[in-house]
């Protein structure tokens, strides 16, 4: 499979959010027209084959697009996503719709919008769809569930990654420019890496979890997946709680004079690391160096302790959170999700307390790693996307990643495409101090400007 050159920008879905926003404000594009273009892509044979969309919210989306156009006509500007179609993972409450979590387990219609959906709508965004997820944000893909798993546009024989599978596939396939997913151990960043898009897990608490179907509240984060770093920054700012520095505030300032710590040993010392990933990360470090950043190797706290603490917290909290639902509807769970949740059944409150103490110690050690550097560079996943066939029958397969540490510590982390191996995308991960999403987006944007990686499109998805 060969990479194809990026197409010329077409009106509508291939415009960046900033470009589409400028066209909307100048009257060269309407929100209704933009929505139509996205709906056509979602409904196309190619788009439908991705199984990215759980529920298409056409009726409410059309009303929101009409309201967005009316607001522009009245001179009201509601923010950077005003008039832009977006989607949300099927874990966020959307008023009137069951929050399925991608499960057969029955769910009542949500009484109100989640905080994320409310912020999107208040900011003039057009909420066009709910998107596929691994069941209850646990493990997958599971081909025994009611809906088929989302497909990776780069190669449908390989997984999208998860659990924000539909959120990644929708952006990678050009169906939506930005989506909102969740990340408890890497569920925004790993599908972003596997699917060749940008994923931004913000600082813990920056995006409200109100109305989000929880997995592990200590580790759950909500944030955007998007086609570019600039799009991700604007989408994050649209759903952030008040008081945080704008993620888009430093876009375009470049990487010159910044110091980036490269956690190379976290990759090179692990036999699970695919050589293509290490080479892509070495190349990414070189690109940032050529862009004017100082690169120095750093050694963060040992990865295994993050896995121990994070896995214990996740397993204990997830099992407790699902206990009543399992008792009522255990038979309706998918096999893979149920087994993964039950893995926490023998953990005690004391075990959870111990893991939280470890997390606090690890967070302090990670904070020390940031002394003298502006950001940390490492890989998102240690290998490109594995084959779907490896997961047949709901089998759980371990995909090695470097994402969980930053759920444990709450530091913001950005995954962005940095190369390809065998036609599959590879993701670099940038991490910054808490609240410094603007630094992440500044460096990520500088990397995008210095390479053509972000311009690549999956073969066959180059044009509408």
């Amino acid at each position, binding site marked *: 499979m060969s990479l194809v050159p990026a197409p010329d920008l077409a009106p509508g879905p291939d415009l960046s959010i900033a470009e589409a926003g400028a066209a909307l404000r100048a009257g060269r594009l309407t929100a209704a027209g933009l929505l139509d273009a996205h709906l056509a892509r979602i409904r196309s044979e190619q788009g439908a084959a991705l199984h990215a969309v759980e529920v298409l919210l056409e009726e409410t989306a059309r009303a929101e697009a009409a309201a967005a156009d009316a607001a522009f006509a009245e001179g009201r500007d509601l923010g950077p996503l005003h008039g832009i179609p977006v989607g949300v993972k099927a874990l966020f409450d959307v008023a009137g719709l069951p929050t399925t979590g991608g499960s057969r387990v029955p769910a009542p219609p949500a009484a109100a919008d989640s905080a994320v959906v409310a912020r999107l709508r208040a900011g003039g965004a057009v909420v066009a769809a709910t998107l596929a997820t691994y069941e209850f944000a646990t493990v997958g893909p599971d081909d025994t569930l009611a809906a088929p798993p989302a497909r990776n546009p780069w190669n449908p024989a390989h997984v999208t990654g998860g659990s924000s599978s539909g959120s990644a596939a929708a952006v990678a396939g050009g169906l939506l420019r930005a989506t909102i997913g969740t990340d408890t151990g890497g569920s925004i960043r790993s599908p972003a890496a596997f699917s060749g898009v940008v994923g931004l897990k913000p600082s813990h608490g920056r995006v409200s979890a109100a109305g989000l179907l929880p997995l592990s509240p200590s580790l759950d984060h909500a944030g955007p997946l998007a086609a570019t770093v600039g799009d991700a920054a604007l989408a994050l700012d649209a759903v952030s709680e008040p008081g945080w520095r704008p993620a888009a505030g430093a876009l375009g300032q470049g990487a010159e004079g910044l110091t980036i710590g490269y956690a190379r040993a976290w990759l090179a010392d692990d036999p699970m690391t695919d050589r293509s990933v290490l080479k892509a990360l070495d190349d990414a470090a070189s690109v940032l160096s050529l862009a004017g950043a100082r690169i120095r190797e750093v050694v963060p706290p040992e990865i295994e302790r993050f896995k*121990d603490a994070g896995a214990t917290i996740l397993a204990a909290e997830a099992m407790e959170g699902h*206990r009543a639902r*399992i008792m009522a509807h255990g038979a309706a769970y998918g096999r893979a999700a149920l*087994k993964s949740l*039950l893995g*926490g059944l023998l953990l005690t409150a004391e075990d959870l307390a*111990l*893991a939280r103490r*470890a997390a606090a*110690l690890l967070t302090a050690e990670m904070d020390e790693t940031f002394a003298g550097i502006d950001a940390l560079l490492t890989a998102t996943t240690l290998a490109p996307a594995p084959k779907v066939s490896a997961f047949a029958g709901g089998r759980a397969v371990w995909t090695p990643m470097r994402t969980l540490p930053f759920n444990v510590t709450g530091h913001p982390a950005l995954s962005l495409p940095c190369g390809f191996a065998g036609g599959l995308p590879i993701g670099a991960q940038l991490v910054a101090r808490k609240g410094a999403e603007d630094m992440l987006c500044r460096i990520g944007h500088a990397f995008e400007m210095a390479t053509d990686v972000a311009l690549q499109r999956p073969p066959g998805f180059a044009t509408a």
Partner: protein
Amino acid sequence: MPKTTDETELRERLAELGLDLPEADVAEVLDWARRGRASVERLKGWVAEREA
């Protein structure tokens, strides 16, 4: 073959949840649970060392 303490406890917990899983699934859940126990044991030593 006699059941281990953790296997007995797991089966009791599964019964409390009203679950009757195939044996292969019980074995897999037990494996997950043992990995979780091993993580906790490692953390005990690590935290004690750091907090000493």
